[in-house]
């Protein structure tokens, strides 16, 4: 019982649990005050309606008039913007609609944009309704006009033919007219004005002719009727407007569209602009007037734009309403609200699933940008831009530029690409190129740089893995960003952010094996506990290694200083170059060397290391056999100094060491490259050791993920017990055929001593010590690593630590 209380108390004080409890309390309060809250989650279609108009002014007094959307019981203008440069804009509303008027003396493009919520409208007409009695206030809707020839003989004749038997019943009368026009009058794409009689005579008409004929027949029967003009909102770009009719029944205007077959019903995508027999546009003659409507419909959580007015209480607290204060639109507010969740998705995919991505939160940002374009278009555009940046990187690489100016050049190239795209297709399409600005060009540039580097290292599997992981993460984040359910939930219940925070904290404290690690270590899972990367980071690196010591471990010069002081053998320093002034001195030194290695002091994973194996009359010869001249070497030094290879991008120093020649015993395994020995020590005790032998696949590097062979070493004997390459068990070297199993590592006991001494010099609790065996000097420490990898487990065919209990590690 006592234990249970302790366990309970421990779990309660965890921040994640506390946050969840706080969120639950707030949620309970919220729901108690507003039980119907979740009913507001319903998605609503919002229409982005853009009307662009253009004309040539000819320096005379100009005017352009058009009807603009107006809010009423059925349609609601959520937001609108009008851009018309130097033209004066004015609008006035009357019973016919809202008239927008632009006046001025210079031609200009006019762009009207609004976001509109629309509802369908439906009426159920009682079949026993009678044709209404004439009223003074409806006379205007019964009169004949120039285009609606109510009293024309042909209208009378037509009515005689189609009149229903119950000619005093409103519904049969309307239906007779409706069916006649809908079925007998053929719909024709007439663009001009068609009056009722012309429509009748031709038996063909567009919506306006059909509408006028309907109105004429309705008015003839004493039914007040009028034309209505508007636009059918369908995704895309078009120039056609639409007309339908309304008849007045008991003070309600009943919509009827004989063209598209809607009786007493108006679909949600009908935007009403005006009533009456009017033209949508009126303007100064001979000005080459042109117009276009662009419509984009998108489902949006109603909680993002429908707010309870004048209620500032917690009950009606809406995060989206508060975010309105930032001036963002609903779409961006939705995206903004989803950022924490997208971050959680990213964290989950990386830390629980184990996906690798290009950049940590770059996929999230790309997904956010895709909200404006749609996932596939966005990905295509993004892929295109990255490909362009990659090609730019390749081209600029040939120009032998320094890294930072090269990245800057890529940013400029990507910007130029946007401008060129806009110039050629920006005016011709409805696509909003502005949103591309959301694709962060800086990130794109870094991404291109990284892909270029991976490609040049022929790490195509890495590109594929990271690319796939990036695509999956983008898709998952996109799903989160575009979910109306989640947007609505986070807007209405912002306390859910506490739950997200709690989950992020829980994942941050989670030490389980990532899903992909189950596959990676599948062959050794049965051989005891395996350490995953989360556990390595939390239980080993974070717990045992102080930040200060970790930073020392990344500083090669300082590490070597400490190692020397502790009596650990390390490679000599030919030169240390901290400023550009030191470069000339360094060049004088290295000209006298037959071979040397130039390293960035804060570099990692072999980045920026230049190996010179010798000199001839042409210049220096690098490890690939290529000739490198002095200028190239000094430029490389400059790049190192500029921080191009340092882990944090800060200023760096150049370290030049003599070229090490490996011990002949190791040459027997592979006589190229430099083999090294990695020892993993935990609190001074050697836990695991392996010998990394280069192969042709690894391009002469002792890098396991590039294909070097990993040889597990028995700590007690120094003999190789197990060998593998890329996770596959092998017995002999793939290039030389040398027998690997049973190989005795020379100087083994000395190596162990050196490793232990190293942990005294750099007292990291969890440390990887890389040691090479020089042909002349014997074992030398190459570097120490505060975050040694866990692939050694696959090499030795078992988990990192034999004794889980003593190592205080937990099962995955």
């Amino acid at each position: 019982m006592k234990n249970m209380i302790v366990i309970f108390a421990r779990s309660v004080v965890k921040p994640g649990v506390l946050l969840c409890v706080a969120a639950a309390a707030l949620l309970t309060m919220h729901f108690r005050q507003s039980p119907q809250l979740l009913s507001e989650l319903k998605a609503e279609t919002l229409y982005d309606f853009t009307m662009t108009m253009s004309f040539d002014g000819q320096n005379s007094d100009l005017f352009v008039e058009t009807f603009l959307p107006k809010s009423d019981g059925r349609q609601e203008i959520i937001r609108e913007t009008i851009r018309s440069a130097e033209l004066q804009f004015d609008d006035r509303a009357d019973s016919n609609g809202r008239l927008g008027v632009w006046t001025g003396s210079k031609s200009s493009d006019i762009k009207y944009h609004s976001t509109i919520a629309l509802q369908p409208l439906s009426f159920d007409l009682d079949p026993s309704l009678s044709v209404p009695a004439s009223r003074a206030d409806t006379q205007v809707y019964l009169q004949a006009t120039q285009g609606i020839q109510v009293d024309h003989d042909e209208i009378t004749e037509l009515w005689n033919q189609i009149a229903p038997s119950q000619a005093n019943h409103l519904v049969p009368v309307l239906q007779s007219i409706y069916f006649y026009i809908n079925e007998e009058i053929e719909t024709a794409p007439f663009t001009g004005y068609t009056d009722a009689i012309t429509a009748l005579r031709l038996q063909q008409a567009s919506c306006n002719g059909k509408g006028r004929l309907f109105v004429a027949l309705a008015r003839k029967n004493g039914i007040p009727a009028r034309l209505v003009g508007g636009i059918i909102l369908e995704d895309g770009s078009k120039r056609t407007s639409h007309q339908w009719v309304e008849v007045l029944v008991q003070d309600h205007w009943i919509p009827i569209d004989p063209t598209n077959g809607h009786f007493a019903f108006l679909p949600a995508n009908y935007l009403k602009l005006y009533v009456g027999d009017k033209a949508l546009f009126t303007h100064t003659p001979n000005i080459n007037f042109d117009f276009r409507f662009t419509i984009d419909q998108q489902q949006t959580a109603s909680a993002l734009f429908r707010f309870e007015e004048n209620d500032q209480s917690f009950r009606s607290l809406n995060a989206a309403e508060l975010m309105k204060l930032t001036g963002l639109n609903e779409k961006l507010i939705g995206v903004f609200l989803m950022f924490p969740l997208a971050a959680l998705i990213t964290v989950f995919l990386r830390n629980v699933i184990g996906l690798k991505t290009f950049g940590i939160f770059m996929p999230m940002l790309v997904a956010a940008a895709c909200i404006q374009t749609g996932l596939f278009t966005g990905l295509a555009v993004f892929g295109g831009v990255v490909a362009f940046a990659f090609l730019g990187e390749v081209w600029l690489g040939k120009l032998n530029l320094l890294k930072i100016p090269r990245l800057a050049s890529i940013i400029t190239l990507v910007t130029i690409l946007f401008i060129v795209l806009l110039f050629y297709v920006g005016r011709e399409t409805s696509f909003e190129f502005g949103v591309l600005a959301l694709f962060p060009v800086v990130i794109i540039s870094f991404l291109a740089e990284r892909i270029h580097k991976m490609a040049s290292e022929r790490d195509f599997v890495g590109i594929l893995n990271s690319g796939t992981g990036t695509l999956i993460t983008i898709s998952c984040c996109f799903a989160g960003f575009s979910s109306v359910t989640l947007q609505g939930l986070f807007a209405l219940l912002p306390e859910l952010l506490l739950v997200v925070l709690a989950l992020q904290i829980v994942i941050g404290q989670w030490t389980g094996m990532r899903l992909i690690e189950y596959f990676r270590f599948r062959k050794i899972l049965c051989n005891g506990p395996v350490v995953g990367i989360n556990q390595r980071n939390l239980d080993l690196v974070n717990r045992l290694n102080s930040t200060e010591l970790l930073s020392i471990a990344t500083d090669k010069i300082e590490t070597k200083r400490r190692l020397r002081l502790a009596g650990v053998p390390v490679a000599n320093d030919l030169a240390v170059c901290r400023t550009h002034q030191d470069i000339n001195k360094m060049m004088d030194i290295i000209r006298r060397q037959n071979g040397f290695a130039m390293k960035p002091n804060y570099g990692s994973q072999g980045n920026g290391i230049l190996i010179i194996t010798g000199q001839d009359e042409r210049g220096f010869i690098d490890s690939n056999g290529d000739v490198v001249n002095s200028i190239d070497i000094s430029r490389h030094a400059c790049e190192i100094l500029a921080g191009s290879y340092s882990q944090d991008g800060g200023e760096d120093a150049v370290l030049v060491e003599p070229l090490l020649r490996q011990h002949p015993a190791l040459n027997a395994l592979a006589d190229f490259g430099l083999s090294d020995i990695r020892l993993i020590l935990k609190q001074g005790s050697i836990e695991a050791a392996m010998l990394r032998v280069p192969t042709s696949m690894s391009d002469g590097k002792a890098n396991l993920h590039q294909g070097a062979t990993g040889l597990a070493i028995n700590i007690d004997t120094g003999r190789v017990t197990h060998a593998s390459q890329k996770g596959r068990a092998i017995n002999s070297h793939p290039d030389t055929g040398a027998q690997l199993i049973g190989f005795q590592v020379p100087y083994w006991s000395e190596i162990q001593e050196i490793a232990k001494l190293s942990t005294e010099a750099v007292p990291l609790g969890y440390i990887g010590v890389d040691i090479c065996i020089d042909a002349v000097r014997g074992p030398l420490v190459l570097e120490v690593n505060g975050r040694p990898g866990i692939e050694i487990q696959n090499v030795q065919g078992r988990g990192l630590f034999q004794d889980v209990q003593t190592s205080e590690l937990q099962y995955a």
Partner: protein
Amino acid sequence: MHKKRRLTSAPALSILAILAIGGTMWTESELRQVDSSAEAFKIVSDDGAEFELSDNSALPNDLKAAVYRYISQSNGDAFTSSGLQGFAEYAQSGPETQKSVRIYLGRVLASKKRFDEAKLILSAFSAKERQRLGASFAFAETLKGLGETDAAGAAYYAHISQNPSHQAGHINYAILLSDLNRHQEAIEVLERAVEITSGDRKGKSYSLLGIAHMALGDHKAAESALEQSIRFRPGHGPTWRRLAIARAHLENFSQTEIISTFQRSDAVAPGNASTKQAFSNYYFSVGRFDDALPLYSDVSKIAPEKIQEIIQRAYNLIASERPSAARRLLKKIKTQRVSGLEKQQVKILDTVLNGSQAQALKLLEKLDSRATSGATKFGIILASLKVGDFDNAQSLAQDFDENSIFVGPSKFKIARGLHRAGRDADALALLEELVAKDSQSPIYWLYLSRVRSALKKPQDALRAAERAYALYPESGHIAIGYSEALSMVGVRARAAEILFTYLEMKPKDRRALSALADFYIAEDNFDRAEQLLKIVHELQADNSRVVKDLARVQLRADRAAVAIQTLGKIIAQKPADTEARLMRARALERLGDTKAAMSEYETILKLDAENEAAKTELHRIGG
């Protein structure tokens, strides 16, 4: 081997995540389902004329078809018997059948509203023959359709005399009689209609009977008939509306009952402008102007073209003391197309709301109040009150029909005008009469309280204010009025409590804050009063009255220096404000700066040489 942490392992968490994603996707698909259908708005028939299909003839189908072919080929030519000869079916028939065919032709034409042609065919027969061959109803309909109402009446009469059980005939005849204002006769016909009809039609007959009784002013009989109608058609909104109207005219129904009948009408036929209009008019007539506001607003939404209704809404806004809202509405009306009579009403409304007294006088000279509608007359009353012509207003108010919705509101506006003109005794009589009749009107009680206060009857005033507050505690006017009434009788704590309660609902209500500040001044709690007035000042920085009140409080709290600063703000904006300058001069004096005070008094006299207060003060200091 990984049992220990299986529930929090990556596979388990991945499965959980997949389930969560699945759940979200399912919810997403549910929420995203577009409901393209809309809830249909039901529009029901409002007891129009009855129609019958004329295809109840015993004629063989081939002959009926021949008739329809003939009609479709006629192209508007006059129908003749010879025209039918072209049809073999007709030509081969016997003379009696041919008569039946022609009668059938007339009936079909009548049903198609081709009355001229129907009359041509049917009038060729004698009344007896029409009767015998079943066309007397169609003939009556034809005559009615042609506007020959007297002849139609006779034809209906002949028809129902011979067909005493023909339901549609009785109903349509009654409707015609009602249209001709022959309501008594309509009632007799409808009483027969009630006997011969059943179900829905019986309900309709009762409803029409009720309408006829109402037209004759017999609201009791109307109410009884309409109540009967409801028994047969409980879901018929217009009948409920008429029942409510009938009840509104009867004294034995309480306001609650009448309102619930209107509410029922609104519930069974939602969105019906006529119902909302009648309901709002009722509220208006009984002085419940605030209750009428949302209903009038609904009417404008449903039928935005109905100018008359919008004007009525504007009058309601004026009656409920919302002139700014009425002005905004007037602006809207001015953009609409209006008829001649409406134009006149808009002009009156414009003068009442925006015009000067001179303009109102000029308008009144032009208007002939005798032959005007109720709304126009009400407008003229308001214009008369604007120029202070109470006699004209009262005489016009007495002209209203006793059932007019303007009776109460007119008297109220007159009483309010009298009160403002200081004629509280006259106002009292009117208001007492009003509350005796319409005891549920909070604004009537409020003004009664104000008038009684003015007449130094604080206890009576308090009783009236209490009634007003009980009826409408959410109103700022009423809360303040009640609080004032309480203060007058010395119940200051309760007065403050009322204001606090109201301020909980509307914490930024300037009037309530000012009233509360007055309360604190009376309590000599100048600091608190000053705090409140500062809030009011923040809300209405350009209101010089508030600033002066603030300065006055500061002076009373012996903070003359602060008061001088406060007054300085007004004087900077309005240098000719002698009242503010006078206050500043006194404040300067209080600070001992006699020289500056004298200078200020002199400035006041420069601005207003007749300013007695400045003269006196200057004389006092100089003396």
